[in-house]
């Protein structure tokens, strides 16, 4: 399928071939993202950033991507000063914004907002996170990190560690990995297991799923250790949060028996799940992962706006 003119709301909108195309284009974009090569692929194009909740990192990453390709951005950075405050519906706001730019990047606190925005907009809508819902460009940059490290996504053994219940990134990532036949090994604190419906869906999509009985044994066989953040806002009770938050922490000792090619990933920001001492180890891939957000978003913007990969 061709990405030109399409919305990107959920990773499930993309077939395996679409994902492969984005990853290959993203790889070619890396020198441009690093400032080693310049590009005017999106010169004269305008991207509208509609952020209805704060997310500096994702917003900056889209802005950087657009500007590295010679395009421009306009943004609602502070919804409290916009018409939304005056009671305008999201549908109306989006309808108006779709008349301004060539595409809209939306971040919104309510799940399903991006799908609604896509219905209201004449221009492509890219979901940059809707509540606890989808955040497909995060999934794509996660995949890009693995693709860069291993040259393939097929047959990778990926340990998913942490909050597998609420973490939206992990559900989307697991879905995408299932398309590539990856083997998923789950490790979570009590009460934060993958929801049954998500698991069923993954198995239906062909995922091989196992539970880690002991983390160090799972890490020993793994290609990727994907660590998630415990979402503090999901816990009503601070004591409950603390009990869970302290229950796993990756340090150099926990990586002692790992394969040399193992990479440790984290969507960032971290809050104690990975000890700073891991940062200097060859396993640490989380800062590279954050950087790859830029070339991945460049690839998405180029493909969606022009149909060409730069």
């Amino acid at each position, binding site marked *: 399928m061709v990405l030109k003119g399409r919305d990107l709301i959920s990773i499930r909108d993309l077939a395996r071939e679409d994902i492969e195309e984005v990853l290959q284009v993203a790889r070619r974009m890396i020198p441009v993202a690093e400032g080693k090569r310049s590009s005017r692929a999106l010169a004269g194009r305008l991207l509208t950033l509609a952020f209805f909740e704060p997310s500096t990192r994702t917003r900056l990453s889209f802005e950087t991507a657009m500007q590295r390709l010679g395009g421009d951005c306009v943004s609602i950075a502070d919804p409290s000063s916009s018409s939304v405050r005056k009671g305008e519906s999201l549908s109306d706001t989006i309808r108006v914004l779709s008349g301004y730019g060539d595409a809209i990047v939306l971040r919104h606190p309510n799940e*399903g907002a991006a799908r609604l925005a896509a219905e209201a907009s004449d221009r492509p809508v890219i979901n940059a996170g809707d509540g606890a819902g989808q955040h497909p460009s995060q999934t794509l940059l996660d995949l890009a990190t693995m693709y860069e490290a291993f040259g393939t996504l097929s047959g990778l053994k990926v340990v998913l560690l942490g909050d597998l219940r609420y973490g939206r990134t992990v559900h989307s990532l697991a879905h995408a990995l299932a398309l590539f036949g990856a083997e998923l090994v789950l490790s979570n604190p009590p009460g934060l297991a993958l929801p049954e419906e998500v698991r069923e869906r993954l198995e239906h999509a062909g995922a091989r799923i196992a539970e880690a009985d002991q983390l160090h044994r799972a890490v020993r066989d793994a290609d990727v250790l994907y660590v998630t953040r415990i979402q503090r806002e999901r816990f009503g009770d601070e004591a409950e949060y603390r009990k869970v938050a302290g229950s796993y922490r990756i340090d150099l000792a926990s990586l002692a028996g790992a394969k040399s090619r193992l990479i440790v990933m984290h969507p960032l920001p971290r809050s104690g799940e990975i000890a700073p001492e891991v940062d200097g180890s060859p396993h640490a891939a989380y800062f590279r992962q954050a950087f790859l957000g830029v070339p991945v978003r460049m690839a998405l913007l180029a493909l969606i706006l022009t149909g060409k990969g730069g």
Partner: protein
Amino acid sequence: MRELKITPIKNGTVIDHIGNGLALEVLRIIGVRDLDKDSTVSVALHVRSQKIGWKDIVKVENMELSPRKVNAIALIAPTATIAIIRDFKVREKRTVDLPERIVGVLRCPNPSCITNQHEPVESAFEVARRRPVVLRCAYCERQVDDFLAALA
């Protein structure tokens, strides 16, 4: 049709083979309060059925169901059959069928879903699985299998 202890109707709809105990929910879907005040509504509860053991039946005079209401009935009473009566005769008889997309019938159980936020949008669900039926919100992707609780 076997003779029943409720009177025949001249024009209207008979919803038969409703699962035992679900007639009141079917009435809720039909919206009995909105009916023509001269219409008779007959309800038979716990009637012997060769097909499904025990069943409920609802007969409503002077009313034909909208497709939206038929979809709602298909969700909570999938065994139901619908007969359209004109001039005391069954003119049309069909089973209820679940379409691929169900619009405006259920409310998404996710309070944070955009369809629950005063947006000018109707709820929409897609069929995630048919046996047993599981629906998925077309907006937030939340899955739903308790349709009684989610009736809009």
